[in-house]
């Protein structure tokens, strides 16, 4: 399987940042870092914006994050209907970068507001798919 294994329902199968999947397998969430200038990217990028350098290394993230905003989806595309309704969030990681991710159903949604502290954790889907979500 290629990168379509990423997500609840992945679309893109071919990419240079495929190694993310092996980190997720190990229960880790990793960002890419430019070997030339040290800039970190999450979601991972294969190519540095600042210097167009394409040599990258992987760095594991601590997952600590603050919620920026969220929604609860009731009307979903066909592939996502088994999970409906579900929560989607945008959060800021401790390194200042942002992540778009589902929010785990175990989170008490009444507690959610911009600023709420959450952790980005690895999640496994029923079809052997892998992703991360906010807990």
């Amino acid at each position: 399987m290629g990168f379509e294994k990423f997500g609840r329902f992945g679309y893109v199968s071919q990419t240079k940042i495929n190694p993310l999947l092996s980190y997720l397998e190990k229960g880790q969430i990793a960002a890419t870092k430019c070997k030339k200038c040290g800039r970190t990217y999450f979601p991972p990028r294969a190519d540095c914006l600042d210097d167009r350098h394409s040599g990258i290394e992987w760095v594991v993230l601590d997952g600590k994050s603050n919620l920026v905003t969220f929604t609860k989806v009731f009307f979903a595309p066909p592939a996502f209907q088994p999970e409906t309704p579900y929560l989607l969030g945008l959060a800021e990681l401790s390194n200042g970068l942002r992540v778009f991710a589902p929010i785990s159903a175990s989170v008490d949604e009444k507690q959610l507001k911009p600023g709420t502290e959450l952790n980005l954790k690895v999640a496994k889907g029923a079809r052997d798919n892998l992703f991360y979500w906010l807990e």
Partner: protein
Amino acid sequence: MGRVAIIGVGHSKFGKRSDASLRELAFEAYSSALDDADIESSRIDGSVVCSATHYDKQRSPAGVVAEYLGLNPQPTFNIEAACASSAVGLRTAWALVSSKLHDVITVVGVQKMTELSNEEIQELMGRAGDVMWESPFGTTMPAYYAMYATAHMAKYGTTEEQMALVPVKNRKYGSKNPNAMFQKPITIEEVLKSRPVSAPLKLFDCCANADGAACLIIANAEKARKLTDRSVWVAGLGLASSPMSLAGRKGPMTSFEVTKNAAKAAYQMARISPNDVDVAEVHDSFSITEILNYEDLGFAKPGGGTRLLEKGETELGGKIPVNIDGGLISKGHPVGATGASQLFALAKQLRGEAGSTQVDGAKIGLAQNIGGIGMYSAVTILRA
């Protein structure tokens, strides 16, 4: 006066048009635009077809549209910028006629959506977000805009009741627009009671998917003066981009940087300020979008959009009437046709032909059209 004029406008009925195909919808709008300009089709030396083609069964629709409108062998091509396709089509046409590469060109915004279910459409719309990092989590357009609504509510105390004022206002004016999909006014209670789509947005906070077409005939100044004395002039064109991914954007998610940038460019080119605008069409894809647009266009301060609604300033008779053709919320949103539909409404206003919704003495009109979840935004300023 400017270098480029809109010399004719046309519009099909928007909605679930189970009676018409894509090419036939385009014909309705094109034919009425030719009548409006009072010129023959033989005058048109090129067509810019605007459609987000993934919703249409027809691929590369410019081919069939140009054939059906009788516009072969003149140049034709498709422009796609999601919901902002036909605003970008006007920008393209502006460059084509002001460079004198063309004299008179048509911009045809058209979309045939309802052969797909709303679920299928939202799957495609979700993929007009970042398909690697966001769509795999089940994104939809309502979900993306709902996230802006959540943030605006938290930062400024905006309430669902205040957001409901947008559909209530727009549906009131939609009832006077024979081209609109929904022509029945609604109440705040009906909006608040409607079913959740993506919290806090409910059914009546959302525009609906629709079929439809709208058309503009564009000419350079020299040709325009020869052909008509009813020209409306393109005074300002602003277009900007933002990261497509939400994670790539900065700040509290309570405004669209992309619209601020597009507005700045358009105001500068037209040499006007927000206060000079007499009538506006803004992208009310959702109730919250209209409120953010007031703020991003400079009609209100950050967080002040809801005050404008509460004071009736964006009603007919208010300081700056907005979406008094009913907006996307009443008309329906046939993605590629919406930008041209906004410009249709402004042209009617600036020519004093808007009937019962005429803004007295309207001289300057502004249209703002967001593409997708704000990776594109176009601001167009027209003058009588």
